[in-house]
């Protein structure tokens, strides 16, 4: 079981590193935000697996806090986007 958990943790780490390519290439800020989101979800998964692997229950709390922080990051993003243009959907352009 431990060998399997180690393999799972390692593969999760690989997906994190591959996600870096998207941050590097962009091209828009939104793409980079996406990679940040990838880090959040994968990080939570990695922490949960490590908690089981190393029998450190506290890591589950870290995962919980990371998930909560992800919500906070989203809220911060909302606040910024909403400040930029408070009018919601008044400009309606048809899709190309």
């Amino acid at each position, binding site marked *: 079981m431990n060998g*399997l958990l180690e393999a799972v943790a390692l593969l999760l780490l690989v997906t994190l590193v591959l996600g870096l390519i998207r941050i590097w290439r962009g091209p828009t800020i939104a793409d980079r935000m996406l990679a940040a989101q990838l880090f959040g979800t994968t990080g939570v998964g990695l922490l949960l697996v490590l908690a089981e692997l190393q029998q450190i229950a506290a890591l589950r709390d870290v995962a919980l806090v990371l*998930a909560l922080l992800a919500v906070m990051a989203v809220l911060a993003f*909302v606040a910024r986007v909403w400040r930029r243009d408070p009018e919601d959907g008044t400009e309606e352009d048809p899709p190309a």
Partner: protein
Amino acid sequence: MILIELLQAVLLLAGVGFFLVGTLGILRFPDVYTRVHALTKADNLGLGLIVFGLLLGADSVPVALKLLLVWGLALIASATAGYLVARAARRRGVRPWRARNWEKG
């Protein structure tokens, strides 16, 4: 007991598989919108499978519920983030990518 461990192994490996697919998706898909699709769906399912895999080996009820709580929070966070990223892209006028041989079905 062996059966449970086998099921755990299957769930954990499937979970990692979906994480890999999500990452591959954000590298391969052509624009922001499609990448959001790949990431939110594949990664949330991946995390869900890992959570259920670990759940089978959880030693107490609060631990099991904590795993589910983490998954729930992650779901809300990434669905909201996906929507916000798509909305921000749309407002900046990012045109959605379209297939060359586009057909209405």
